[in-house]
């Protein structure tokens, strides 16, 4: 059995996912990719997730909406969510993100250090 913790990466842009993967890659955890909210939710239904890195802007369902769903379910409400946003314009976004339970906020481009 694979005992590593799962980290769910959610971004509609596959290149961003690869970038995130290259930054986060570590034997300590397993990275799961999701390109939209539906895939993310499917992953959450299928396995235990230790943390989520979530892009705020996605078509169909935004990261904020997705976070609300995750925080609305007992089984998943404890999972820390790290939001990613493309530009720093979004003070509002950030507030809303914290409002739905974000633990931190990162502005793209993401660097390894941040």
């Amino acid at each position, binding site marked *: 059995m694979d005992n590593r913790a799962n980290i769910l990466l959610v971004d509609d842009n596959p290149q961003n996912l690869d970038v995130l993967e290259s930054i986060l890659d570590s034997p300590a955890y397993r990275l799961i990719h999701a390109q939209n909210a539906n895939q993310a939710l499917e992953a959450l239904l299928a396995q235990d997730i230790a943390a989520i890195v979530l892009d705020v802007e996605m078509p169909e369902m935004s990261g904020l909406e997705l976070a609300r769903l995750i925080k609305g*379910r007992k089984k998943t409400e404890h999972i820390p969510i790290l939001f990613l946003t493309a530009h720093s314009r979004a003070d509002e976004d950030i507030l809303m993100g914290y409002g739905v339970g974000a633990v931190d906020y990162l502005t793209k481009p993401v660097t390894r250090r941040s």
Partner: protein
Amino acid sequence: MALTSKYKSEFLANISHELRTPLNSILILGQQLAENAGRNLSSKQVDFARNIHSAGTDLLNLISDILDLSKIESGTVTVEAEEIPFAILHDVVERSFRHVAESKNLPFRLNFDPALPRSLTCDPKRLQQILKNLLSNAFKFTAEGQVTLHVRPVTEGWTPGHRVLSHAPGVVTISVSDTGIGIPPDKQRLVFEAFQQADSGTGRKYGGTGLGLAISRELATLLGGEIRLVSTPGEGSTFTLYLPVTYTGPAAPRIAPATAQAIDAALPALPVAHEEAVPDDRESIQPGDPVMLIVEDDRHYARVLLGLAREKGFKGIVSDRGQTALALAHQYLPTAVSLDVFLPDMLGWTVLDHLKRDPATRHIPVQIITVEEERPHGLAHGAFAYLVKPATTQALERSFERIKTFAQPHMKHLLVVEDNAIESLGIVELLGHTDIQITAVGSGAEALAALRERAFDCCVLDLRLPDMSGFELLEQVQGEPRLRELPIIVFTGKALAEEEEKQLKTMAQSIVLKDVQSPDRLLDETALFLHRVVADLPEPKRLMLERLHGSNEALRGRKVLVVDDDARNIFALSSALENQEMEVLSATNGRQAIEIIGNTPDLRAVLMDIMMPEMDGYQTMQEIRKEPRFRLLPILALTAKAMKGDREKCLAAGASDYIAKPVNTDQLLSLLRVWLHR
């Protein structure tokens, strides 16, 4: 393009159902007028009424054709292939069309090639539908000459490269030739399109909807074959149906059903919601008035019922939705309820269960008026009476009279059959109060004598009796028509053996039977069947019932599977169910669902979304029900649109019940309690 067509088909399917409902009322009323029962119409007026009926029937046929076509186009028609001996096919066709041929004075020749195999494997219903269309056309367009049906094996002739026929080990053709007006070459393709006839004037001269050939062509494709046409104007036409000897699948790939959200977006709101309410008496109710709550979504039928209720001295309140009906029941606490089973937002059973689970409304007698023959189910859940629609006015009147008499305050009579004197005393102590009179007997013979002597409202029966077994007593009761609907509660301290339970269940087909093992449940069930007013019961008994109903015992720890292609829905539903301490499994498609069901022996219920890509909810349910051990697994269908046809389709496909989307959590939980309680 395919998707647009799919939306159109879905839309047509829905609208057709909505058209049929009012049309049925027109037909019934037209027919009633034409009968001129009051002898007060002139012969001309009777004629008009007949015309209304016959024109309405034509319209109904047209709608059925449209519905058929859209069903086929939307891929919701399933093929049920079976072996059809050609000899049988010969007889069926001959029998159906001999009289048409005779009435038109046309020779009808059937020519079956001796080289044919013994049978073909195909869907007999669909095949007949095609042949009926082709033959009706042939007879319709032929004034003189003859009509021939020719069946033979072939090795070529179909469209080169046909997906199925080119690879089929054997192909047969069924050709229908006439000597009629024929079809000009430039119109030959057109006749297969919906609503087209070769000459736009044709419809007027020959009648018909112009849909028959379109339907036939689609059906032929569905059966893995095709229809080809050879025709010379003025000489006649030959329609040839090519079919593989053994059905293997459709000739064109199915359009994958679109996702629920997409369909919702594409469908304009249907006019159901804007239907004007039937004006009722809710504004004029005075304290002390007997009130009848009429729950019926067909406005016209509701009017008929309202009229009857008024005749019997009730004030009537009409509701076309289950949810509103429940609110009205609480607000007005009606004297009696008349309930339809097919409602737009929930099954009448759910309404009945709500009413019967709530101490405030539990005692209200409910008569169920429906098209479904599910009498025992209704009665076992505490319904007072069960009528099958379209009921005659007399039957309706009798039922209204009976419920009115019952609703008047009166002493209820209960028979207790128990040979152990102490236990008998205990039961009387438990159930007794000023509102009921209890007769206690100690043997089967005494019980039968008492039942024959006077009318009882309910009976409590111990299966162990000195002179005969409880089963023998039940059989005797069952044999007497007057006692057939008597609710009998089997009260036994020990759990019934599987065999005994089975035996009891078979009897429940005609009598209302409940087996109960604990005193509070006994109190509960008798209160239900005696329509006791819970609020009037003594305090300790009331508390006993409240405890029984308030608990979430039915849900806690139970495993339920949520099937939905949209993970958002799964998430939302899971949250609601997990809050009730249920254990939720999930599947995002039908295959996965079937696999999980197979691997989860302690699964207690399934919530099934209908609109899923690839394998939709209908197919999934049918697949699940094929396995005998899952026959009784409660499957609750989630339908995106609360449409009559969908609900019927859900139940036909094997759903135990349905609930409309967006799902109302309380309603869902209550539905689950109903199904998990059994």
